[in-house]
């Protein structure tokens, strides 16, 4: 079993040297091709002696071809394992760097020990250290998994070469045998860990060589596109590469369903074909919307594309999530769909990114900002063309139940963790949740995610009535309630956030900032991200780590009188 100490001791430069030396020796043997061919019994020599000489020559030539094929196979495998060792040592170095940054040490046997526990007893610090320790452990698991895999592959090639079992093809030449044998030296690329966490996926990606990564992106974009923990640029490239194929598949499905309906005298009365056709058309419209969004001015990253569910799911970033100093992830709520909502949300995120970038440069660390629209869950949908916002209240998919928020929250938590895990330095990460999306966000943040700040706006509840359940640093949970937003007073999923102790209220009212800027009020349920609004400003300063510049307001109105929770009942 390979250990961390072994990996540290491996010497890829010497493997590179062996790779070159094998090429020289292979070429020297191939250079004997002419001599070997000319050593065969000459034309005109016949009889028993000539026949025996030919048989002996052919046997010797075959042994030479086997030898050359073996050298070529081992040479190729040596080159590949040299690349793999470099990737493994790089990944190990990253894991050790991360461990050291948080006061941990990685031993030669692979254990992670706490060598510099912090003096602070702050619960958030402890949580963050626990999260990082788990990430380091996951990364080490992937490093050792990959090391064992590549070792087994390489040992198999070496064994076959030692036994003369490398196929040398059917031709008579040593050069031909070399070409055939080289193919046997290809080491397999290990796949992503089954049901891996974001940290597992990040660890897996880290141990692949550049050539293996390139081949995977080209060959298997569907797998890579949805793997939390992979770099945003990789997910973006993989998901973009899928768009044409997904569209073709949907068009074929649409044609099939339409043909079924056309051939059926009763149409879709006794089948689900008409409903399925509606779903396919909506997904095609979602692809249109995604492509339009990606073509907008400025940088976009397609971080998620999932067409397996009833409705399309997607996440689109404005800016570069791999390099941004501040990343904010926005989760919308009731009625959100890719085809129907992405256009407006992307505009909101583009405006928020610009606003946050301005605040960062003007008053903050000047760090760059990326914002993400995350529609990575099946948000509840209104019924009757929007006239019934609650849908079927008996269904678990209704907005009056938290089932979809819990399921979405689990995926969202992994998405957050993936952002941190995909990078060598964590960004300042902010979770933004609106309406039912704030409940989804609330459930996500009840897990360890690495999120540094959270802003809930227009929230019918955080999925809890206690701020301690929201695992962000103390004092970094905010809410915004605009005037006449009845949803924000619903208290449907936990008590009305207005009354959750420890959640700071931010203003959505008209305000004038100390620097003279005038900001507009947001009213109702759907204007929290309006350009130049106080609400948008407050979200932007939190998103770039400038909470001291926030404008507070408790946001209480008439609705909060009726939503007051009776103490002791929650």
């Amino acid at each position: 079993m390979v250990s961390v100490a072994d990996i540290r001791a491996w010497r890829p430069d010497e493997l590179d040297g062996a790779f070159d030396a094998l090429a020289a020796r292979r070429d020297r043997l191939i250079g004997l091709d002419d001599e070997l061919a000319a050593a065969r019994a000459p034309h005109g020599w016949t009889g028993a002696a000539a026949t025996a000489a030919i048989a002996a020559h052919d046997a010797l030539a075959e042994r030479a071809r086997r030898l050359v094929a073996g050298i070529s196979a081992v040479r190729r495998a040596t080159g590949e394992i040299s690349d793999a060792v470099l990737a493994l040592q790089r990944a190990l170095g990253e894991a050790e760097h991360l461990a050291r940054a948080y006061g941990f040490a990685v031993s030669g046997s692979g254990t992670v020990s706490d060598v510099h526990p912090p003096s602070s007893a702050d619960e958030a610090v402890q949580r963050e250290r626990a999260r990082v320790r788990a990430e380091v452990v996951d990364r080490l698991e992937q490093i050792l998994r990959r090391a064992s895999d590549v070792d087994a592959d390489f040992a198999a090639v070496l064994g076959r070469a030692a036994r003369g079992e490398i196929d040398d093809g059917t031709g008579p030449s040593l050069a031909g045998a070399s070409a055939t044998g080289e193919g046997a030296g290809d080491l397999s690329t290990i796949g992503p860990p089954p049901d891996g966490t974001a940290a597992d996926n990040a660890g897996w990606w880290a141990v692949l060589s550049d050539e293996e990564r390139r081949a995977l992106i080209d060959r298997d974009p569907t797998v890579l596109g949805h793997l939390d923990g992979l770099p945003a640029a990789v997910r973006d490239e993989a998901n973009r590469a899928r768009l044409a194929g997904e569209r073709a598949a949907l068009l074929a499905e649409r044609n099939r369903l339409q043909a079924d309906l056309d051939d059926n005298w009763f149409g879709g009365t006794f089948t689900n074909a008409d409903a399925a056709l509606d779903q396919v058309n909506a997904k095609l419209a979602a692809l249109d919307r995604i492509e339009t969004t990606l073509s907008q001015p400025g940088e976009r990253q397609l971080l998620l594309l999932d067409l397996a569910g009833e409705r399309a799911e997607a996440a689109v970033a404005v800016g570069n999530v791999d390099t941004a100093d501040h990343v904010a992830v926005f989760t919308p709520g009731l009625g959100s769909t890719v085809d129907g909502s992405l256009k407006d949300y992307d505009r909101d995120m583009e405006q928020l990114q610009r606003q946050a970038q301005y605040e960062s440069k003007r008053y903050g660390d000047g760090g760059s900002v990326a914002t993400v629209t995350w529609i990575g869950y099946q948000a509840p949908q209104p019924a009757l063309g929007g006239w019934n916002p609650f849908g079927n209240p008996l269904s678990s998919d209704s907005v009056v139940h938290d089932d979809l928020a819990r399921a979405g929250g689990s995926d969202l938590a992994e998405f957050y963790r993936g952002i941190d895990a995909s990078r060598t330095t964590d960004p300042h990460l902010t979770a933004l949740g609106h309406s039912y999306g704030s409940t989804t966000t609330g459930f996500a943040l009840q897990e360890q995610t690495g999120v540094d700040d959270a802003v809930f706006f227009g929230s019918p509840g955080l999925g809890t009535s206690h701020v301690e359940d929201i695992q962000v640093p103390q004092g970094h949970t905010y809410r915004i309630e605009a005037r006449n937003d009845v949803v924000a007073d619903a208290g449907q999923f936990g008590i009305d956030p207005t009354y959750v102790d420890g959640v700071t209220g931010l203003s959505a009212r008209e305000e004038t900032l100390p620097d003279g800027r005038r900001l507009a009020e947001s009213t109702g349920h759907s204007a929290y991200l309006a350009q130049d609004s106080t609400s948008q400003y407050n979200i932007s300063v939190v998103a770039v780590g400038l909470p001291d510049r926030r404008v507070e307001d408790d946001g209480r109105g008439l609705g909060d009188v009726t939503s007051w929770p009776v103490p002791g009942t929650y």
Partner: protein
Amino acid sequence: MARPGFTATADRIRAAAGQAAAAAEGAGGLGLGAVATTISQSLRGTRSAAAAAELAAAWDTAVSTWSADVAAHAQRLTDSAGTYQTNDTEAANRFRTGLHRAR
């Protein structure tokens, strides 16, 4: 005196022997095992290290035995060429002797 065709064949066999000898010499001192040993030493603690050590021994044996076998084959070709020409010359002499007696 041997007939020209036989002489040419014997010469070609000798040439083939020369090529075989050159091949045997060319493969000598290849040092394949040393390269495999380097691989083994570069990958401490692995199954590959053990496999590479076995490969080093296998390659060294394979090259040296092949080289020796090809050299032996070259010698057998040389011997065959000599035997081939000697037999032809002796047969020709026997015919010439018979011809003189007949006169």
